[in-house]
């Protein structure tokens, strides 16, 4: 065996041993309070550590989520750096391992905001948090059979966004701009992603009211600008002038579509998008996009951390809240040309300061399962 491999194994063994010891110490420390009395005595954690567990830093969306988390910790008088980022890089295993390590490090005196990366991972994550006596609020991914009220106070809340309705709204705006007739193509997200499915469904719902509009084709562009350009170019060859409107599953794809059309010298094609990124809002203002949908990730990032934090400090008791305060939809704001300038001034130019104790004000009702 080469020395490299041998050294590597040795080092890993030692670090794993240290990790196990640390975890055991952490667990022991957490178990200790239970030995002395009921859980009620430890309902309040003074000054819990705060963490956000999410996918990556290479997207405007997650950056915005984190900026909201940072705004919240600053609002309670802590430094930005006190918000711990647990980046899972698209791995559920890493997501769970990071959270367990954070629980051990803080002895369970912590509040965690989390997107569990995929739905099945949410259960082990919230159970680990409950067992450590810490508090967690989740967004986006969880299975339909997992509910905060079944886990207890430690699983504070879950927020997600329903994309079907807003995608239907953008489709209606698109169809009206097309004069109620013609052909539309849909450039979607990664085919198996939930938001991609919902956004296409929204388009299909709107189609029912517009019999003279034909959905020429719907193909995945994987949320990606380059894919969007190339797919749109191929659509142009296949359908040519039959395309009179384009429905995109997100802003990044729309950027690609606009460039593919520009290469052909096609201006004024009606296009709608989704996500409400700053560049897209500017395109709406310039009239190059008809509409996009903003889900206010900044608020989502802050409020999710705030819910976990205030439940941990005992400011409110989750089990005393109604179900629509435990599982709810996040806000969606439609951005069209007539309100884009106002929208930009309100949400993008200066980030609004939110009342992080108004947990449910901008939310959108209790989650409904199909």
């Amino acid at each position, binding site marked *: 065996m080469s020395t490299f491999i041998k050294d590597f194994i040795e080092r890993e063994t030692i670090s794993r041993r240290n990790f196990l010891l640390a975890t055991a110490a952490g667990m022991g420390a957490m178990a200790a309070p239970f030995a002395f009395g009921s859980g009620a005595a430890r309902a309040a954690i003074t000054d819990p550590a705060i963490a956000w567990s999410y996918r990556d830093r290479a997207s405007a969306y997650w950056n915005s989520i984190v900026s909201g988390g940072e705004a919240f910790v600053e609002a309670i008088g802590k430094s930005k750096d006190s918000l711990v980022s647990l980046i899972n890089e698209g791995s559920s295993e890493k997501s769970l391992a990071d959270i367990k390590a954070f629980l051990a490090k803080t002895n369970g005196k912590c509040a965690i905001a989390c997107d569990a990366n995929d739905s099945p991972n949410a259960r082990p994550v919230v159970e680990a948090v409950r067992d450590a006596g810490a508090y967690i609020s989740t967004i986006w991914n969880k299975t339909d059979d997992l509910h905060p009220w079944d886990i207890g106070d430690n699983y504070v809340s879950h927020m997600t966004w329903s994309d079907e309705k807003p995608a239907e709204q953008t489709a209606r705006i698109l169809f009206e701009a097309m004069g109620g007739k013609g052909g539309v193509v849909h450039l979607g997200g990664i085919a198996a992603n939930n938001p991609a499915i919902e956004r296409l469904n929204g388009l299909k719902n709107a189609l029912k009211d517009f019999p003279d509009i034909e959905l020429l084709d719907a193909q995945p562009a994987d949320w990606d600008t380059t*894919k969007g350009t190339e797919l749109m170019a191929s659509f142009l*060859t296949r359908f040519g002038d039959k395309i009179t409107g384009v429905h995109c599953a997100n802003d990044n794809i729309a950027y690609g579509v606009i460039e593919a059309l520009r290469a052909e010298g096609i201006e004024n094609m009606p296009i709608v998008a989704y996500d409400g990124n700053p*560049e897209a809002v500017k395109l709406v203002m310039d009239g190059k996009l008809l509409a996009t949908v903003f889900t206010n990730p900044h608020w989502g990032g802050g409020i999710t951390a705030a819910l976990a934090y205030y439940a941990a400090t005992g400011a409110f008791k989750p089990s005393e809240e109604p179900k629509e305060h435990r599982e709810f939809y996040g806000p969606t704001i439609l951005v069209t040309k007539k309100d884009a300038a106002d929208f930009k001034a309100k949400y993008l130019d200066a980030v609004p300061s939110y009342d992080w104790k108004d947990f449910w004000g901008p939310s959108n009702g209790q989650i409904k399962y199909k």
Partner: protein
Amino acid sequence: MPRILTRENAIRWAPFLVLLALVILFTAINPSFLSQRNFARIAIAAAPALMVAVGVTFIIVMGSIDLSMEGVISLTAVLFCFLVLALGGTLASGGWIAIPVILVAGAAIGLVNGLIHVRLKIPSFMASLALGFVGTGAAILLTGGNIVKFDDPTFRALLTWRILGFPLMVYVAGMCLVLAWFIQAHTRLGRHFYAVGGGEELAHASGVRVRQVRLAGFSLAGFFYAIAAILQVAKIGQAESVTGSNFMFMSITSVVVGGVALWGGIGGVWNTLVGVLIVAVINNGMVVIGLPDFLQAAVLGLLVIIAVILSTDRRSVAFVK
């Protein structure tokens, strides 16, 4: 009279025949595939990919591999946009200086890649993959995960200005291809790539300075990745930390499909051109004939395997690893 239908000739022209067959197939299903406008669309899709594939061709001919392209493209694209914006935001206002600077930066990153591989004796596969991650990470750090828009009409003429129906960027890519061919066929460096790829010990024994050749190869590859980055920015008008995504699969596949052997010493930039066109034609054609999306990935994979079977000379190699 020399025989035309020799085995060598068949193998030499096989990738081209595969390309021709694909064009005929797609045209038979949807005649609008065979139009100048569609060829221009395919050419736009292929231009940046061609530059990446040409860059990696030199490395593969040497018998090494370079997987740093995604990170290098993301980083150079982002640096390019930042630099132009810092220099006034248009090419005319002095932003053109960014072009040579970025080309040199690309070559420098390639040189670092080569130094890690040659000096630290780390296999090129690992060294370049790791450096690619560093590049992506640096791009994320610079952009903070955001998009950098760069929309100077003069620069975007690469996409919007057409000569004989094809955008300017296609001609730029064509000229760079000729440059690559010149390096490959008419310089000592080009011949040394083949010598190293054909048999490194033999090349070393014959006086080829293998280390220098490798360093030059990786620098050259980095230079071509930087060209690809600039063309990609011209194509989509923006740079971000994922600008380089998908180029790894696209370029390596193209090179192999075009008939350049992964074990080195065989093939060249013309093979790469045909390979890039094959992959671009497949990608475009699958949508044009209306293949359902859930079949596309599988069909792409199958067509790639078939293309490799038809276009590589496998009889001359003792084993494949």
